[in-house]
């Protein structure tokens, strides 16, 4: 059986079962999730952060598979449920990409699926994570700085929030202009970094409308990553399908973004773990992803470093990477902001869990990623360095490390410190870190060495 076609997916968005969104959420998603959690005996253990239990990982995968088969994806605009049979899901998993090449020339990089406890170096997708910046100059400076991080395989861009001093508005000409200018500034920054062929994966982060995304794509290449998002939980909007139709024709590499919420319809950590597998299938079948970019979040703290999210992230990743060859990247959100010691502890914990669980990395979004100019290359570089440093550490050891790191910050998740803006942590003219920032970064590298992470 061949992988189901995109045209067939579109048909099902018009012909699938008609249902209100409320019914999908409360009468399908929630009870079906609860059913498979019980059936496959999936239980969160608060003493464990990185489970080392292959049987549990495989049960989470089976639960996710059965759950997705029964639930499917809800198309918000047509109010139809798109479902697939077990055979269709199985064929799609077999046909899914096992490797993806991004970028051009000497900056071309290969993303492959890893496995738990793997000694394979991770793909590091580093950068701004779509955090907004206040000026064009800072945009270029940051792209250059991220591009100069040797271990960055691909880049995630900042987002422009103003054009000629005017705040960007969705569905307006300002948004279209911001999208076009973003990709131009991105190329300039990457050229200044000496990596003109380096792939980007969210260059038009400021664009929400179809026209702005198409406009922004003027400056993109098929070998860039084209990020396609979906809405929690297991929802798709027609504009996203429109984007997918467009990018498929361009031959672009699709990075399928998925974000289950702990505390939302998924419930607790067990639900997030199972939903992560369902999202992997959704990413392949609906979003037509060449790889999955997964970002489980705590609904209130907007972070992945809460111990319950870490457990779900870890076992969900193990379930996926043990049973699917399609590459997985995880983007962990930090509760604390840049240059805070807490942010470094959180980063070390989350990245260790991610790498030991068989995933690749996107880094790094801090303090919810929602404050303008609250970003910088040092914390990002640190995330990539940790990712490489913990390769080869097995899940058992990772669990011990992550547990000890969690103790350093978990009591502060509710009121995590905001950290420093770029202007507070770097020399805005030269882009160099201020001495205090450099000191904190070097100090924290020494601190985490005591936890068994030698950066």
């Amino acid at each position: 059986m061949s992988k189901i076609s995109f045209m067939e997916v579109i048909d099902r968005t018009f012909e699938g079962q008609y249902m209100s969104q409320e019914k999908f959420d409360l009468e399908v998603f929630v009870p079906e999730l609860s059913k498979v959690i019980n059936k496959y005996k999936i239980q969160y253990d608060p003493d464990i952060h990185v489970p080392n239990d292959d049987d549990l990982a495989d049960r989470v995968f089976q639960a996710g598979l059965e759950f997705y088969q029964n639930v499917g994806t809800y198309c918000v605009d047509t109010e139809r449920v798109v479902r697939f049979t077990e055979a269709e899901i199985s064929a799609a998993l077999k046909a899914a990409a096992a490797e993806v090449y991004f970028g051009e020339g000497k900056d071309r990089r290969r993303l492959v699926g890893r496995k738990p406890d793997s000694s394979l170096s991770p793909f590091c997708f580093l950068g701004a994570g779509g955090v907004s910046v206040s000026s064009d100059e800072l945009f270029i400076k940051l792209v250059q700085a991220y591009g100069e991080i040797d271990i960055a395989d691909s880049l995630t861009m900042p987002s422009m929030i103003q054009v000629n001093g005017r705040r960007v508005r969705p569905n307006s000409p300002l948004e279209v202009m911001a999208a076009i200018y973003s990709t131009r500034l991105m190329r300039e920054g990457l050229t200044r970094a000496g990596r003109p062929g380096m792939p980007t994966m969210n260059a038009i982060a400021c664009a929400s409308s179809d026209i702005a995304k198409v406009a922004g794509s003027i400056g993109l290449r098929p070998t860039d990553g084209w990020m396609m998002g979906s809405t929690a939980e297991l929802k798709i909007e027609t504009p996203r399908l429109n984007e997918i139709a467009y990018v498929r024709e361009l031959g672009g590499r699709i990075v399928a973004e998925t974000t289950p919420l702990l505390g939302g319809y998924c419930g607790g950590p067990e639900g997030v773990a199972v939903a992560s597998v369902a999202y992997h299938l959704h990413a392949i079948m609906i979003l037509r992803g060449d790889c999955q970019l997964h970002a489980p979040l705590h609904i209130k703290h907007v972070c992945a470093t809460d111990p319950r999210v870490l457990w779900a992230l870890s076992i969900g990743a193990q379930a996926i990477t043990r049973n699917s060859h399609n590459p997985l990247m995880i983007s962990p959100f930090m509760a604390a902001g840049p240059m805070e010691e807490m942010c470094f502890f959180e980063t070390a914990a989350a990245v260790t869990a991610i790498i030991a669980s068989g995933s690749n990395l996107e880094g790094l979004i801090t303090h919810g990623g929602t404050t303008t100019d609250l970003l910088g290359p040092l914390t990002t570089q640190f995330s990539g360095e940790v990712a490489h440093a913990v390769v080869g550490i097995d899940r058992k050891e990772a669990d011990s490390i992550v547990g000890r790191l969690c103790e350093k910050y978990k009591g502060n998740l509710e009121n995590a410190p905001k950290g420093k803006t770029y202007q507070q942590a770097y020399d805005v003219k030269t882009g160099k870190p201020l001495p205090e920032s450099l000191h904190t970064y070097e100090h924290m590298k020494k601190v985490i060495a005591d936890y068994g992470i030698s950066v």
Partner: protein
Amino acid sequence: MGESEILVKLKQAVIGLNQEAAVAAAKEAIAAGMAPLKAIEEGLQPGVEIIGDKFDKLECFLPELIGSAKVFRAAVDVLEPEIAKLGVSKHTSGIAVIGTVKGDIHKIGKDIVVLLLKTRGFEVHDLGEDVPASEFLNAAENFNADIVGLSALLNTTMPAQQDVINLFKEQGVREKYKLMVGGAPVTQEWADEIGADAYAKTAEEGVSIALTYMSKKVTT
């Protein structure tokens, strides 16, 4: 059965998400001659508040929060005709109009605020997502709202909160309403910059601010 036992039953039914038990306890309250408002305020409401507090600490999750709201509603549906029969005016904490601003389709955060406001006695008009400024204005005027809640989950859609406030000012109705803003990227600084009356970091905080505002409004 004494009133205190019935009140406990109402509370426990909400906490246990047991709609059948809540409806039965509401009927018992009527049969026992209990003031229906007392059944709501001293029986159902404390149950809802316990679930709300648990959700705030994520000791329970969104499905339980929604479930408790449904149980609350089912019991209130039994009690409301009795309130009408007694000629007592329907109890509301206030009238709120709420929506996610233009260009933004995120709904979960806004939906949680809607749920919590409803269970704290507010009459809530949920305008949905991607709501134009004019729709907020029309709804506020038509429903004689006390509070207008503006949700935005993206940096790029935050300016739409400002658009709503500007429109209210231009139309000369700004001072009639308490304009509240929220959403992940929203901060107190942003609320101050655009002239909002209040910013809430969490849904629970938003409800608390709304209740405080209404209690002050009633006393003045």
